[in-house]
């Protein structure tokens, strides 16, 4: 307090608003919801991304086209629009039973999962495609020349190598997904940003609440970057990837 007073600021800091009463509970709930939302969406986005990214490189045009349509459709609409679409639009078109299921399991949460998954799936797809295309075509030839099917060659050779190459850009996309999950507050998901806004509304302590939110996102993202750095080192191909330039954490 004295430091800010020294700068001539009159603001009265009350950091305790973050943990007094049920507000500590709010923050914790917000963190858990953000993690659950991001992790669920990330798993689905990766599955969609790996599948569509791989399909964009296969030697059969209809499949390539299908995957390209998915990518261009879902990455070229703003995420916010997707969230509104999946929350306000899609449920009405679902069959009765599905609507009932949704209403009992949190329609906000699952609409946010859908929006984040398809949007980031399309973006991860491009990362995967770049990775696969940087695996020399001759490796695919060598694999099928031994009698492996194209599917086996992709599963055992091409995709595992591509996944190793794309750890840095995939880390970027994962961090983006976590940060973009904050948009889910617009459809009423009580995630971290939602909770910091709620603390601000109840206490009028915007600086404290948003500082807490900022630092928590920072810590979460640094944690993910550090995990991905370890993944990168764990799966490094011996003798192949140079030591210089690897992730340092």
């Amino acid at each position, binding site marked *: 307090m004295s430091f800010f007073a020294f700068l001539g600021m009159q603001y009265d800091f009350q950091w305790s608003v973050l943990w007094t009463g049920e507000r500590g509970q709010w923050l914790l709930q917000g963190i858990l919801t953000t993690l659950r939302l991001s992790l669920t969406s990330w798993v689905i986005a990766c599955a969609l991304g790996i599948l569509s990214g791989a399909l964009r490189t296969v030697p059969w045009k209809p499949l390539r086209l299908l995957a390209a349509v998915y990518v261009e459709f879902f990455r070229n609409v703003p995420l916010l629009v997707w969230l509104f679409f999946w929350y306000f639009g899609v449920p009405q078109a679902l069959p009765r039973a599905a609507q009932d299921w949704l209403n009992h399991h949190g329609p906000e949460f699952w609409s946010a999962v859908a929006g984040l998954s398809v949007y980031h799936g399309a973006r991860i797809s491009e990362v995967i495609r770049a990775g696969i295309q940087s695996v020399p075509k001759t*490796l695919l*030839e060598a694999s*099928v*020349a*031994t*009698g492996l099917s194209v599917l086996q060659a992709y599963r055992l*050779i091409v995709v595992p190598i591509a996944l190793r190459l794309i750890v840095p850009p995939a880390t970027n996309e994962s961090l983006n997904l976590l940060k973009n999950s904050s948009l889910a507050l617009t459809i009423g998901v009580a995630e971290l940003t939602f909770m910091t806004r709620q603390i601000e509304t109840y206490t009028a302590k915007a600086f404290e609440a948003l500082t807490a939110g900022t630092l928590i996102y920072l810590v979460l993202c640094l944690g993910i970057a550090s995990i991905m750095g370890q993944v990168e080192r764990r799966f490094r*191909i011996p003798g192949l990837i140079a030591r210089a330039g690897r992730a340092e954490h």
Partner: protein
Amino acid sequence: MIQFRGVNKWFGPLHVLKDIDLRVSPGEVLVVCGPSGSGKSTLIRCINKLEPIQRGEIVVDGMPLHDSATDITKLRAEVGMVFQQFNLYPHMTVLLNITLAPMKVRKHSREEAGRIARDLLAKVGIPEKAGQYPAQLSGGQQQRVAIARALAMQPKIMLFDEPTSALDPEMINEVLDVMVNLAKEGMTMIVVTHEMGFAKKVAHRVIFMDEGRIVEEGSPGEFFANPKEERTRAFLGKILVH
């Protein structure tokens, strides 16, 4: 064993194989040479259908390649191939490089595939490298692993696409020695190479290609001593001078 009948292939407007007729018998060692761009690599890549052909017929081990009903993966299991750039799987150990296809295609157990792989590594002279990764090996060692990988499928035919062209000179012989032994064991081999010493030593027949055609063929003795075609003489003059 292998039969080409009137084979033609185009890359877009480029006519890369022109009316190729060729027959390779079981146990034969055929060396293919010619200037770069003459179609020799394309020719052997047609034998396991890495390249499709547009006209003509290719029959390999009784299976017609031009027939879409032929199970191409089944055919490829019988035809081993060794590439100029080795093309080992960089994320797998030497042992796994060799055992992968026998386990996945031939459905061998891990133990059985491992036993075959270790025998082959001993045969190519690097039994101690089983646990290493390709990038930790020299070029010559990598190419010998690639040969072992192809042999692990117990193929009926082996194709070599310039197997020593990417190697430092002092490593060429270690790879050629393995190939010479293989030829002596009676393997059917088609070898694209400029190693004329190898051709003289083990080839039964040499063919010379230029601009997509087989210009000349003969036993190594007559091919090197009395080339009939002017283009063959010009080519041999250039590569044998030193």
